[in-house]
């Protein structure tokens, strides 16, 4: 499968009379957008635009998405949610680079997920660097939480699809090509280079904890092989709302550094042969079944090494370790990506599970680390939950309006695909 990603750099996003792309600026007709995303389950919808550096706090962020549109090739972005479920991942897709579509809504009372566009908090979330079209949605009275989540998820997908359309006929500023051949060909393409696959574990446990593959609730799948370019076209989307720091938003899925970086190395020092999408369910039987199946698929692919990522806190550590030990038992090397809950001083055990085979682990940071965020001029959404319980902090709100929280309350702070802004360096 060969996919061209045509990147169109967005200089600004503004409201305008017509939704269009002109001179690098995305103009959005607010009324038309609101009409497009209207949903009888939602009582009030509002749209705002925020820029990097503005004194704005957005909370609780449910999802962040990136506008992409299929220009040629089979299917549509976010397959299964729109039109049909044709296979995606080939042809040409246009990307509005530098902007995000952000959905905000309080599905449950304790929800967190802060994006600060300025101040010290902005350093902890990649979304502070985007021009964001922010959609605030309130539910109709009496709507159940499951329905509210579904409605808000669809608002994000519809709004993103609507905006992305402006890029269809644009001339990209940059075109990048990604190609993975059918497995039997790909395995033979670079003799001498190590063959590497990726086990992509998705959060799949229930209300606020779900992910979708081709619009299928991923808790219902057995691990399955897909082309990495399918992910770039939105085959995987987020229905996950917690925890803010280490959930994968749809933007993360579309821009997974694991996939893009493996492509950077593809043909140079490794041969990236494919992605196995797996899940993280509640029962131990499901975890055993999925890890058995993932290990079987990986073995049948005949690879030398595997990267395994997890999503979320606590029980996914078990999925991570099961995948690791079973794949290593087949004689295949693994590298794991996780984050840590190592206490505020970083001295506690990082994970809720471990195995001796997990001897190559990359951390995305300690989610218990504490930060004080100053008061910002404007709030989009609801910060009451943040001010009381977010980040596991009592009395987070100070008299001067600042809040002291653990960074787990910040959207994307310790993302386990590595799409965050923390890192280490050798001194």
């Amino acid at each position, binding site marked *: 499968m060969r996919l061209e990603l045509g990147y169109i750099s967005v200089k600004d996003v503004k409201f305008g009379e017509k939704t269009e792309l002109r001179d690098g600026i995305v103009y959005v007709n607010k009324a038309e957008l609101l009409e497009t995303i209207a949903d009888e389950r939602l009582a009030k919808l509002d749209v705002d635009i925020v820029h990097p550096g503005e004194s704005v706090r957005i909370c609780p962020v449910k999802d962040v998405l990136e506008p992409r549109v299929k220009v040629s090739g089979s299917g549509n972005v976010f397959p299964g949610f729109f039109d049909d479920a044709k296979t995606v991942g080939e042809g040409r897709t246009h990307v509005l680079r530098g902007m995000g579509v952000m959905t905000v809504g309080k599905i*449950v009372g304790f929800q967190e997920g802060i994006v600060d566009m300025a101040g010290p908090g902005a350093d902890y979330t990649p979304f502070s660097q985007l021009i964001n079209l922010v959609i605030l949605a309130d539910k109709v009275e009496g709507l159940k939480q499951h329905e509210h989540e579904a409605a808000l998820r669809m608002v994000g997908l519809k709004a993103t699809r609507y905006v992305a359309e402006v890029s269809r006929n644009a001339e990209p500023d940059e075109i990048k090509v990604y190609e993975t051949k059918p497995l039997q060909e790909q395995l033979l393409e670079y003799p001498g280079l190590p063959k590497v696959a990726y086990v992509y574990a998705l959060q799949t446990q*229930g209300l606020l904890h779900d992910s979708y593959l081709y619009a299928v609730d991923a808790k219902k799948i057995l691990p399955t092989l897909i082309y990495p370019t399918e992910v770039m076209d939105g085959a995987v989307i987020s229905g996950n709302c917690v925890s803010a720091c280490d959930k994968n938003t749809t933007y993360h899925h579309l821009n997974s550094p694991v996939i893009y970086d493996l492509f950077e190395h593809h043909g140079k020092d490794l041969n990236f042969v494919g992605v196995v999408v797996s899940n993280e369910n509640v029962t131990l039987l499901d975890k055993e079944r999925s890890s058995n199946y993932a290990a079987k698929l990986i073995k049948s692919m005949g690879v030398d090494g595997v990267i395994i990522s997890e999503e979320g806190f606590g029980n996914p550590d078990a999925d991570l370790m099961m995948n690791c030990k079973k794949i290593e038992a087949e004689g295949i090397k693994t590298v794991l990506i996780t984050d840590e809950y190592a206490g505020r001083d970083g001295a506690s055990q990082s994970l809720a599970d471990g195995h001796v085979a997990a001897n190559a682990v990359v951390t995305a940071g300690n989610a218990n680390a504490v930060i004080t965020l100053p008061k910002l001029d404007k709030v989009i959404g609801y910060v009451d939950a943040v001010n009381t319980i977010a980040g*596991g902090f009592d009395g987070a709100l100070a008299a001067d309006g600042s809040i002291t929280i653990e960074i787990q309350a910040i959207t994307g702070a310790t993302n386990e695909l590595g799409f965050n802004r923390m890192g280490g360096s050798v001194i």
Partner: protein
Amino acid sequence: MLTEELLIVTNNPRVKEMTDFRHCWVEGECREVIMQAYNFVAQGHQLISHPLAGSIKPNQNPYKSILISRLSGEVDIAALKLAENCLRKAEELMENKIPIDLNVAYGQDLQLVDQDLLLNALQSIQEGR
């Protein structure tokens, strides 16, 4: 597994109302529920759902429901170790416990999310019976 083969260790009032199931009611918070489940596993009950299901931390949600087998057999050492690790992790996080006012609206939401994780576990194992 059949409904009568299951036991729900819980402190969640919403789960207690699921009268088709047998419960072990725990007076206490998340840590006490995990401790009770750990004790059952040590006695040879099968651990069915992961004690740290969900991404809401033990110091953020006091409600916890864990699914185990009603009958006991051989002790599963791997499951015991898993439950022990979960207990330790919960205890570490509880050092920074926050006093949550459960009378406010989100108390109900916390119960709902815990119950939903349990319902997903039940659906999975009952589909496969």
